[in-house]
């Protein structure tokens, strides 16, 4: 058989597989977006027509608006704390040799492998016991959720920031000091700008993982104090309709926009 024909075939089969896999992973996202514009309340295909009504409906359902506000606050605060503490830790982990360094590195990354539902259960019981003994209520509070979500944002930050720090050629810092910059100036003017890509990526991933987290959060919310993904989950256990599609679509658009904005500063395809 002609080799170029065979090569051709191989290439196109491979491309077809890639296309199908992408279609598969994008299918739910595409359809939920489409349905949020359907005019009929009972979902059926093809739709009778299109409307923007459901987006207004979302606003009237206070549980989504409150969940959205809660998720935003939690994600923002958890990101802020996680990125700050995680970055400081990363600097120490990459730039210093000290006893227990490996252990601490593993400890800081360990939340990535502990199942969210298990960690959530442990934290739920812990919070309730704290309340029992110290009368300090953490379950179903903003503080409690932020504390829990810092567990998500620290490992992401450590992972991404250590990677970007390791990639920095130390002779560049030596050059800055050789030119008369002191340590703080060297950090501020040379090291920090070079690790900016890692920091931006860490902030994005921290924010998003916190925002969309479900398993860890499940037991830590309460009536009236719930996050958006849990509000969606609870609604979905009850029914699927264009309103919930509209809520989902808002989350998709928000996260897509965040990714696009971040991609302008840092090439996302290089950090993941």
């Amino acid at each position, binding site marked *: 058989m002609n080799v170029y024909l065979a090569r051709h075939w191989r290439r196109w089969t*491979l*491309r077809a*597989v*890639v296309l199908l*896999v*992408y279609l*598969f*992973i*994008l*299918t*739910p996202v595409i*359809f*939920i977006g489409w349905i949020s514009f359907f005019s009929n309340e009972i979902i059926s*295909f*093809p739709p009778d027509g299109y409307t923007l009504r459901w987006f207004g409906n979302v606003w009237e359902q206070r549980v989504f608006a409150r969940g959205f506000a809660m998720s935003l606050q939690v994600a923002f605060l958890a990101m802020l704390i996680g990125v700050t503490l995680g970055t*400081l*830790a990363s*600097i*120490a*982990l990459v730039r*210093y*040799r*000290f*006893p227990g360094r490996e252990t*601490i590195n593993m*400890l*800081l990354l*360990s*939340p990535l492998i*502990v199942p*969210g*539902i*298990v*960690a959530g259960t*442990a*934290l739920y*019981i*812990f919070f309730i016991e704290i309340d029992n003994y110290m009368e300090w209520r953490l379950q179903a509070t903003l503080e409690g959720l932020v*504390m*829990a979500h*810092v*567990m998500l944002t620290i490992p992401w930050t450590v992972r991404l920031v250590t990677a970007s720090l390791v990639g920095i050629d130390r002779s560049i810092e030596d050059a800055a000091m050789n030119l008369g910059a002191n340590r703080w100036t060297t950090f501020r003017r040379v090291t920090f700008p070079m690790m900016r890509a890692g920091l931006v990526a860490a902030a994005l991933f921290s924010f998003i993982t916190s925002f*969309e987290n*479900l*398993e860890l959060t*499940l*037991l830590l919310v309460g009536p009236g104090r719930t996050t958006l*993904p849990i509000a*969606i*989950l609870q609604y*979905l256990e009850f029914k*699927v309709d264009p309103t919930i*599609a509209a809520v*989902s679509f808002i*989350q998709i658009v928000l*996260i897509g926009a965040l*990714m696009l904005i971040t991609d302008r500063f840092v090439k996302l*395809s*290089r950090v*993941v």
Partner: protein
Amino acid sequence: MSVVMEEAAGGRRRSVAPMLVGPATILVVLVLVVPMAILFRYSLNQFIPGQFMVEAVTVENYVKFFTDSYYLNVLWTTVQVAVACTVISLTLAFPVAYVLARTTSRYKSLLVILAVFPLMVGNVVRAAGWMVVLGNDGVVNSILRGIGLTAEPIKLLYTPTAVVIGIIAVVLPYMILTLQSVLEGIDYSVEEAALNLGASPSKTFFRIVFPLAMPGVLAGTVLVFILCMNAYATPVLLGGPQFKMMAPALYDQIARSTNWPFGAALAFVLMTTTLTLTILSTVFLQRRIRR
């Protein structure tokens, strides 16, 4: 032992490193390590209905789990689903990761971002998407009816198949990205060398590319397997009320039955099973490459 290595002259306080790692470490210990320890301790307590929880050191919760056919079934279902999803996603992800790693197309970064995007959108939203695709009046059934293949809708939603489909879609991006980063590190000239020595493309794949990608296969398999074992939203929303996996069962124990000792035991059974199977598969796969 010296705290600072290869540090420039002019001195620096030796306590800098502990000050930098301290806060993050303390936080993680406080919100993860301590609660996990407490959880483990509670799994050895007794649960007496009406009295809530009684201090004890007993393995009866674990015994109850392994003697109750309902829970054994839940665990077995979970393992089956996790293995199926892991194997299928590995098979599907490999060609995609290979293309992503080898392409010189300018759309490469777009393709990578498109793989990351669904991952960022979150499980619940994607489960909602599958609900409208697989439902009785959903996309698939509407198409089947539209082209006259079926009169009655085929039950797709609230079946184990729906759960497997949903979980595969959730874990595929992780598998693709893990494999891609490893494949990217394999020098293409090694593949060319094999072709030059007379190996056909398929021989080159099985003798060279796949063995060299083994670290990625292992990392991806472990990561994806853990995710599958602990899936919550997908089985709850796509599996229906009859279908139970471990994570939802654990949630029910704590939130609905308020049986903390048994719930804690469930959590550790889940973690230990996952860990054991992960180690077993790692050893198995590593043997296969040594062969």
